[in-house]
């Protein structure tokens, strides 16, 4: 049994509740206790654009809130993972930490450097393990084939994540998918960024990036994409409609989150427990292939 502070981020709880629902269900299944901290705020990743110190300050505030409770952080969003991991690394420097703590005093907080951050997939991979997942599988997903997408901040910057993954040749999500019994493919644009952080600034360029990957997947035999970040999810899933209209395309590829696939394998109820009915493009093919 392990216990984490759940860092929901901004986008999942407001726009992608199916990620939260399925993540909570799978964690409960594996006795991972998730503690909600109501004072958590934005991780600070976008604020770095305007002021690096402010971004660090917001991240440090979240770390301090977890530290008071004596908890490490479990994230759903890869970008939050990256922002918090980078902040942890920066705050290892005592002078930087002192400077940040001077500011945190204003809100009655202090960070001493004890918190670790782990993305939910990494918790599945390291704390639960592939073998245990395989043993728990209750449904046959062997007819399902999916295209994984890792999300840049799940892998990089490498310095902040240690040797967990090899950014140019990632494997953990492939292995996590295989553990459910489903098949995963390798494809040329596997490592391509979703453009989610470019999207608010210039939609056109982000759409070009999204199309590169969707075009690559068009002739591949996949029932869905499997993701582990809600920003990547919104780019590849919900934006398909707008891209179709704008560029005369006919994309219609379902996109799901990894805890939903894992939950299916573990026997969860697809609608109530995994929110598989909440996608703009329904993953009916996947559900039909579950045996």
């Amino acid at each position: 049994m392990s216990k984490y502070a759940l860092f929901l981020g901004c986008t999942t709880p407001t726009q992608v509740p199916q990620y939260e629902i399925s993540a909570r269900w799978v964690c409960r299944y594996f006795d991972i206790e998730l503690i909600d901290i109501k004072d958590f705020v934005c991780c600070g990743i976008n604020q770095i654009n305007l002021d690096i110190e402010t971004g660090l300050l917001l991240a440090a505030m979240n770390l301090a809130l977890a530290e008071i409770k004596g908890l490490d952080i479990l994230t759903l969003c890869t970008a939050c993972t990256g922002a918090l991991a980078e902040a942890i690394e920066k705050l290892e420097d005592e002078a930087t930490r002192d400077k940040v703590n001077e500011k945190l005093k204003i809100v009655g907080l202090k960070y001493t450097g004890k918190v670790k951050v782990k993305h939910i997939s990494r918790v599945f991979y390291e704390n639960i393990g592939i073998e245990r997942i395989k043993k728990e599988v209750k449904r046959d997903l062997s007819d399902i084939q999916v295209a994984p997408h890792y999300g840049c901040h799940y892998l990089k910057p490498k310095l902040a994540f240690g040797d967990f993954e090899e950014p140019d040749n990632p494997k953990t999500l492939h292995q996590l998918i295989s553990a459910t019994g489903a098949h995963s493919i390798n494809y040329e644009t596997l490592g391509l960024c979703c453009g989610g952080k470019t999207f608010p600034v210039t939609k056109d360029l982000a759409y070009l990036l999204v199309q590169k990957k969707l075009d690559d997947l068009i002739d591949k035999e996949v029932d869905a994409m499997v993701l582990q970040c809600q920003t990547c999810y919104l780019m590849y899933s919900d934006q398909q409609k707008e891209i179709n209209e704008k560029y005369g395309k006919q994309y219609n590829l379902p996109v799901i989150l990894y805890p939903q696939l894992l939950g299916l394998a573990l026997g969860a109820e697809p609608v109530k427990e995994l929110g598989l009915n909440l996608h703009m493009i329904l993953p009916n093919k996947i559900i039909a292939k579950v045996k």
Partner: protein
Amino acid sequence: MNRSEKIIDFKKSVSVSECDPNFKFEVMAHPDASGLKSCFNCGTCTAGCPIHEVFSEYNPRKLAKMVKLGMRKQVLSSPYIWYCATCHNCEQRCPQNVKFFNILNVLKNMAAKEDYAPVCWVQQIEQIAKTGIVFATEEKWVKKREELSLSPLALNGEKAKRMIESSGIDEIKSKVNVDE
């Protein structure tokens, strides 16, 4: 301003007298950008950049060179510096361990102080000071969470607001809407 008006004419010659030789020192003074001195302009950053792949005028190598040449105004007023997708490929693959992603953030911070920040990022700061997250409270997702038996979000930006005010980021104004 539309994009075509803002595109830098790279082919136009640059007069040395227009350049600011101190610019590179100013940039490298920030600890996050000190690595720029190791850059030998090989272009590995550009080769691995997904934005460059779809929009060739966005060129990390060129931006690094422009900083070294002291092209202060051209760099800080450039809309391109805001296009980065934050994928970290540039720093991941750099043979000199230069963190171009971090250098770019330093450049964006400097540009923001000169009011070149895109409105989207300025609005996010304002929003965090209200709800603690980058979005305003919307009835439709509040209802949705209720329907799905998910607990209501706290949406209290009070502490974040005090952090934001303490750093002076709330003074940043925007005059650039990069998208249109």
